[in-house]
């Protein structure tokens, strides 16, 4: 028995790979292979490698390395270069960068943040940022709440996100910059974005799929694979992310794919870097929980959050599934394991859990082709 369905290729708004610098964790090729097996046909790549992607030459290098993959890559370049100088946003865009990123925290220097927004507006670049205020988030490891209190772990307060938004949104209003808010995590954050959108601000937002599935109880036993940034938050925050997604405040769901090598990840909680891989398990994890721990969502709606909206945010044309899609078997289950995952990293919280649907093959311009 199988239940095969063809879905439009997904598009991720911010995955990270390890090339250059941490190829043992993920190369561009291995990351794109993982993406294709997770149903993605396009992916915006974060720039914070070692060295970061902050010149047109590096953007071109990324594009070259991605050639021949089943998933298209859209590099996001760093908005800043070392020592707080602006990156060459116009040259970066001309080289193929889909936008510029400020990363996981706002710059401490707010005047520089304003410059980034002003310059990006003129050069036509979308600015990607997770709006957290650094001094409140820097020393934390998990969501500041009851779990952090019980474990004696330094928390990352929701205030870090709301204060970040409080700094960012007035500047977006003033500069008319096009800003995409990555990885929204909290109820207060959702509420601020909702009113910003209502007031006509040109912001879009996404949230990580695990933030829709889990809360901070996931770290109660010091499971390092659930140590992510922004952290998995409280249950009320998780519910609010769903409300935001369902009413359009949040436009898209992202994978938060962050490969970390086993050598680095398998350390004591404090020493273990943030991150979990997610491209291969995002859609299957969501559908596995569909109507159980999350609201019942129709397939067409998943396509909105995972394909249409992200493509629109990146300025890509809409696609049809026959042209660029993935065949999924909704009767089949699969288990993420060393033998089924193709990412070079194994920091996967779903390891060992039965998931459904299972990707079967790709569809490109009407032709069925094997999974890479």
């Amino acid at each position: 028995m199988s239940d095969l369905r063809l879905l439009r290729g997904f598009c991720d708004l911010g995955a990270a790979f390890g090339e250059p610098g941490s190829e043992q964790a993920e190369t561009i090729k291995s990351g794109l292979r993982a993406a294709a097996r997770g149903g993605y046909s396009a992916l915006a790549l974060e720039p914070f490698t070692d060295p970061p992607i902050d010149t047109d030459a590096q953007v071109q290098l990324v594009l070259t390395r991605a050639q021949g993959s089943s998933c298209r890559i859209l590099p996001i370049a760093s908005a800043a270069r070392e020592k707080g100088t602006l990156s060459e946003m116009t040259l970066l865009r001309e080289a193929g960068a889909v936008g510029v990123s400020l990363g996981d925290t706002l710059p401490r220097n707010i005047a520089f943040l304003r410059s980034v927004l002003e310059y990006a507006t003129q050069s036509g670049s979308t600015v990607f940022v997770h709006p957290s205020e650094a001094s409140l988030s820097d020393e934390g490891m998990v969501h500041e709440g009851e779990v952090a209190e019980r474990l004696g772990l330094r928390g990352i307060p929701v205030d870090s996100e709301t204060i970040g938004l409080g700094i960012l949104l007035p500047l977006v209003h003033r500069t008319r910059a096009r800003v995409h808010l990555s990885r929204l995590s909290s109820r207060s954050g959702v509420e601020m974005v909702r009113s910003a959108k209502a007031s006509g601000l040109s912001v879009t937002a996404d949230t990580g799929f695990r933030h829709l599935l889990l809360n901070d109880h996931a770290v109660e036993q010091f499971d390092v694979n659930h140590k992510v940034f922004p952290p998995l938050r409280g249950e009320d925050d998780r519910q609010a992310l769903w409300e935001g997604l369902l009413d359009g405040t949040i436009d898209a769901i992202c994978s938060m794919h962050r490969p970390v090598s086993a050598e680095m990840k398998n350390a004591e909680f404090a020493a273990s870097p943030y991150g979990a891989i997610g491209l291969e398990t995002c859609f299957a994890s969501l559908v596995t929980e569909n109507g159980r721990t999350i609201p019942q969502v129709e397939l067409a709606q998943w396509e909105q959050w995972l394909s249409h909206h992200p493509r629109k945010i990146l300025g890509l044309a809409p696609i049809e599934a026959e042209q660029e899609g993935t065949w999924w078997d909704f009767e089949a289950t699969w288990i993420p394991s060393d033998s089924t995952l193709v990412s070079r990293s194994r920091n996967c919280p779903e390891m060992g859990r039965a998931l459904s649907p299972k990707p079967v093959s790709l569809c490109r311009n009407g032709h069925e082709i094997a999974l890479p």
Partner: protein
Amino acid sequence: MTNVATGIPGVLSIRHLPGLREVSRQDLQTLLDTAQRFREGLDRQENFPKSLAGVSVVNLFFENSTRTRLSFETAQKKLGASPMNFTTSGSSAAKGESLRDTARNIESMGADVFVVRHQSAGVPQFLAKHTKAVVINAGDGACEHPTQGLLDALTMRQHLGDLAHREVAIIGDIRHSRVARSNIWALSTLGARVRLWGPATLLPRSPLAFGPSVSIAQSIEEALEGADAVMLLRIQHERQSSGMLPSLREYRQSFGLDHSRLKLARPGALVLHPGPINRGIEVVSEVADGAQSVILEQVTNGVAVRMACLHLLAGKNP
């Protein structure tokens, strides 16, 4: 099964002691009863059965410690172990070796038991997962210090009897204190109620985190009012430089325990402190050395509690 060494039933349902949070009431009672037997043996200067003879015990101390390490070593030697000590002030990562590698290397030299202290919460669970040794936590970050929680409970039990419905005030830097957390878990499980008080910057931000037996007081008076025991926590000097405390002078004035404040507690209420004491800051000397103080008893009980933990988790019946 009767344990010959102590003559009492001595079987725990746990293999490791990463903390007290998940220890059942029955296991707590077994640990405390066994510790009480050892304490009586120490008072009578008995020779103890060498239940740790041939058991390889390694003290892994990644953070400075004098009294806890000495207390563990004393307990180990009394039970016939020849402990090995691994001490480093920096983290293993600073030397380029991961904690996992350090632990597995030492395990390969032969280690049946790790007694571990580390600046990071969760390290005991990490070692329990990645090695085969029995792991006893001697303090992990701000998470737990279970043998301290046990020795505090034992000391209180010796004076107050059953701790059910007893009121215990814990005053000081709760937020960063593993001692407070281990006490909270043990006391709640044993049926006592705990009131917390300290500077706002050092109190828990989530008052409900510790369950219904634990409350945050509104004033020092409310915290002390009618308490059966008052536990003072050591104030770390670096809380001043990190912007959480204006001065020790103001701390003493607002949170220090003196005779007049102690009178708010139940007559004869116990005064506890995990040490080392900042005399004249958390508690004035007259109270620390006074009739209600059980601070030195805590130290003796510390050896008995650590003997009980080692014996029950790793001892061989002679």
